């Protein structure tokens, strides 16, 4: 039987909040990065590709530490954040940024796959019919990569739900503030007698992942029909 404490419910809500915010925040950047990689010949594409994919191969803890160096009080962006009175470290924003950075390559790769599959003749035809680049983006590229965008968002959301390493370094493990499901499970496993609670959260995590996959499948099917 699943039993959840108020703290667990807080962790579940926070996980959903963080994953949603990270996915939505990353989406325009992910779409833009995929567009640049697929449809432009600008110099520095190889470098951009490397930077985008780097979080995929780096250990999340390393990413978290690098983010800490960047956003910490004495980090590269510390003075700027201080000027605007923004706090990232040990804050919900930190958890969102950590999830966004770790999941970003999955989002871009998925959208890119979809864009790669668009027959360039459609774009040529659209040009001869009077469509400018932003018009082609809106009327051809966006709808034809819709399923890939959705798949990328799903992957990223699911990855964010499970994000642990970068989050614990950048945002810490503060109940009610930055403690997401994986961090709560981690805490239970270090607490005597916490196994049952950890298992309950594991089951919730599995259920959430299933719901995400079902929603994604249903949306993809309706897009295909429509």
């Amino acid at each position, binding site marked *: 039987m699943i039993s959840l404490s108020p703290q667990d419910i807080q962790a579940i809500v926070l996980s959903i909040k963080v994953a949603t915010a990270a996915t939505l925040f990353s989406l325009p950047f992910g779409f833009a990065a995929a567009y640049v990689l697929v449809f432009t010949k600008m110099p520095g594409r190889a470098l951009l590709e490397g930077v985008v994919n780097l979080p995929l191969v780096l250990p999340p803890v390393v990413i978290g530490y690098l983010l800490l160096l960047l956003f910490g009080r004495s980090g590269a962006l510390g003075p700027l954040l201080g000027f605007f009175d923004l706090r990232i470290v040990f804050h919900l924003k930190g958890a969102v940024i950590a999830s966004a950075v770790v999941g970003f390559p999955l989002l871009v790769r998925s959208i890119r796959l979809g864009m790669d599959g668009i027959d360039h003749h*459609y774009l040529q035809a659209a*040009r*001869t019919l009077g469509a400018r680049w932003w018009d082609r983006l809106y009327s051809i590229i966006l709808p034809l990569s819709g399923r890939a965008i959705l798949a990328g968002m799903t992957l990223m959301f699911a990855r964010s739900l499970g994000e642990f390493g970068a989050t614990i370094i950048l945002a810490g493990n503060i109940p009610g503030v930055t403690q997401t499901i994986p961090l709560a499970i981690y805490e239970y496993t270090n607490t005597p007698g916490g196994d049952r609670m950890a298992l309950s959260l594991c089951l919730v995590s599995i259920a959430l992942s299933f719901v995400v996959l079902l929603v994604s499948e249903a949306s993809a099917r309706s897009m295909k029909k429509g």
Partner: protein
Amino acid sequence: MLLQMDIKKRFADFELQVNCELAAGKCGVFGPSGSGKSTLMHILAGLLSPDEGRIVLDETILFDSDAGINLPPQQRRIGVVFQQAHLFPHMNVRGNLLYGWQRTAVARRQGTPEAIIEVLGLSPLLERRVTSLSGGERQRVALGRAMLACPRLILMDEPLNGLDQELKLQIIAYLDRVLTEFGMPLLFISHSLQEMELMTDEVLVLGQGTVQQHLNTDELLRPEQRGLFSNGAPSLVACS
């Protein structure tokens, strides 16, 4: 229509060099595969830039390497019917047909969608998904889509390839009807003598990237010319 071209385009293993004027309302570019027909079509549509030269359609300079002018396809107002139609798969027939029309300034619009849809016999297909259309239907929709962008010139790049003889004649009849009714100039690209005969009044014969002959369609069809082409490109006579 007056189309003046003096262009050069080099590739690693091929060079296209065309210098000519086309004035008839229905012109053809004729030649075997690999003669540069499709390259010329892409250059005229603005989808490929020549290395040097000049292209002028009526009063409009489409390309001039000396003056640094190269109008993008979306500003050339040249409609293209591709060999494979390339209908937008996420739109139904109506969406495809109206794509160019919706992007044409109201002042430049000619005719009405209803009239072109009627002439091309597309009314029963409007709500159909383009993926469910037959080859002939797809080409009729592609033609309607190009015409509804109200272009100054329609380019057709071997649009009847892959269709059976009966369907070809059916499409040609539609094409003839719609061009006559709306008075739109046509540049028809093909390697079929029969299609040249049915669709054009003036023909540019391309071979190995250069203009071999520039003549009236009647002249192209004379027995001595037919013999010439059958020697150079045996596949040409198969369609005639």
